[in-house]
């Protein structure tokens, strides 16, 4: 739609990119291509949406998906072309972000892993212990110095949220087999 107006505003033009980031933008390419693939999937998938017979309504359930897919596909392809011409994206700033640090994939992976434990632990071990693992693991991955402090704070946070949101505000957070016998946690 308005992609053509984008050219002069990119990272290289605004002059804010830190110097010395010359690694090949393979990941950036991959992500842009992934977005283009999602767009293509949206277009192809739109063709498979069943249009109920008889409902000759003017605008069926397919039209909007087609246009969303087209927008996504075209915009992603423009990004890919810009990347090929050497125009990189400008990573976001933040107070806690070190602009000169390289991406620390190990920490990111560990955090994703810690968060993924929730998928299993919430229902098997209960909310308080799932939080203990998530909080403790994440704090350690981020460089907390004392492991026992991280785990204790995590346990405290888990119990407090269980009491506030589960017992007091009435959300049905599972307290888990270890705590279920205590009346206040049983809710």
């Amino acid at each position, binding site marked *: *739609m308005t*992609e053509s*107006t*984008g050219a002069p*505003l990119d*990272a290289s033009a605004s002059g*804010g990119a830190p110097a010395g980031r010359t690694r090949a933008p393979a*990941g950036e390419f991959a*992500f842009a291509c992934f*977005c283009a693939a999602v*767009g293509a999937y*949206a277009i192809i998938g739109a063709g498979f949406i069943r249009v109920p017979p008889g*409902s000759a309504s*003017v*605008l069926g*359930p397919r039209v*909007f*998906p087609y246009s969303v897919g087209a*927008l*996504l596909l075209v*915009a*992603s392809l*423009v*990004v890919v072309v810009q990347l090929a011409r050497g125009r990189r*994206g*400008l990573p*976001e700033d*933040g*107070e*806690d*972000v*070190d*602009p000169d*640090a390289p991406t*620390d*994939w190990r*920490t*990111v992976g560990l955090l*994703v892993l810690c*968060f993924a434990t*929730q998928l299993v632990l919430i229902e098997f071990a209960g909310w308080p212990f*799932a939080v203990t693992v*998530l909080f403790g693991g*994440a*704090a*350690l*991955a*981020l*460089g*907390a110095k004392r492991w026992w402090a*991280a785990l204790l*704070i995590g346990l405290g*946070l888990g119990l407090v*949220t269980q009491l506030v*949101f589960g017992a007091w*505000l009435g*959300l*049905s*957070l*599972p307290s888990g087999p270890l705590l279920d016998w205590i009346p206040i946690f049983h809710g």
Partner: protein
Amino acid sequence: MDSLNALLEGFATALQPQYLLYALFGVFVGTAVGVLPGIGPAMTVALLLPLTYSLDPTGALIVFAGIYYGGMYGGSTTSILLNTPGESASIVTALEGNRMAKAGRGAAALATAALGSFVAGTVATLGLTFLAPGISKLAVQLGPADYFALIVVAFLTVGALLGSSVPRGLVSLGLGLMLGLVGTEVLSGQQRYTLGVPSLADGIDVVIIAVGLFALGETLYVASRLRHGPVRVIPVTGGWRGWMTRRDWSRSWRPWLRGTAIGFPIGTIPAGGADVATFLSYATERRLAKGNARAEFGRGAIEGVAGPEAANNAAAAGVLVPLLTLGLPTTATAAIIISAFQSYGIRPGPMLFENQSGLVWALIASLYIGNVMLLVLNLPLVGMWVKVLRIPRPYLYAGILAFAGLGAYALHFNVFDTLALLVVGIAGFLMRRYGYPVAPMVVGGILGPMAEEQLRKSMAISQGDPAYLVHSPFAIAAYATLAAIIVVGLWLKRRRARLEASAPEPITASLPAWEDEPR
């Protein structure tokens, strides 16, 4: 003076003890998380959405309004006091305020920021009070085609103006629209993009998109490039009563008012929210400064804190005008507040002032009250916020992850939502890493289904004639404005880029003596 009466009734509601407590809780939490680096108001509101599952609508919206205003106040404390070398000039307050703090005038910077926020917040809330009912009366007459035009305006301005690259903004918007498509389509009951997964048939909740992008995605991104070592905070000395000298006052009040005048109108139009307003105010103050004050710009000029801070808060209030009268979110935070409304089955828009007038006016009254509370919270209690600023980062971000998990799981008490959150969070991380703005994705996820509904309604009315979309003067005006907004917005962005490029280097060694300068 209908709205005055309604406002008084709103005050009568909002001044009830339990709502005062909700407001206090909101502004307190809002300031705390505003102070914490990395957590903006969007993330805060997203993380606290579980509250809406158990509070009544008035209470929950008062809490969110408090968080919204509080986050704006708290942010300035961070940028003034946090000593993070190398940070770009993305936050204007950091430009001058941080340098004032380094020169030992942090107290004055904090005071002018807080007072400016108060002045701007109050004046802009007044503007909201008198503008909103009128606009909503006009908006009642709008048809589906007009709404569709408005939503397209919001899409394209948010997509094209947020972030540094137009195609990246549109990709982000497209991803959000795509997530909004998943689920059972309302009119014909067909499933779309559900991959046969039953949990996806209900669609992807906006909370998942917001919390995933803002809490999980942000945390992963910060973790990938975390600034290690102790948190360095510039100390503030002296009691708060002597913070601003008479000279500081006389140099501040005009920038406050100018900032308000710049910020409020920009907030009301969908032009990229507060960022543009603060930069415009900063540029104005720099141009208007005379004599010694001009020389101070770049080394800690109080005008450069007072104006942008006021503009920031005025724009935040301005954003509420299209939100409440048209149901149109123009920033990510506004989009999340809309989803809070929706979780109560309340639809913001022109009918809101008719159907839910008690709720709306209580909300507006609580904005006035929240502003007063924020002034009290911020000035004398700054020492406490400085302590908050020192929370060790590993614990801070681990805590954010825990609350993100709570927000997702508490939606349906089903770990499938946790999984969806993780996927959206990883996408949010990659988007930040590769320079895609995330706000258009949230706006797309919320407005996408509304856009489709209005489009199909108008097509049903016109029996398939696309010319119906531009049949009304309002729709034509909206599309014309869209063109104008994009042109002006791109011009503003280019200006801002130039300003960033020309921002003078910090000079901390040879600071001039301000105190005895004649004006």
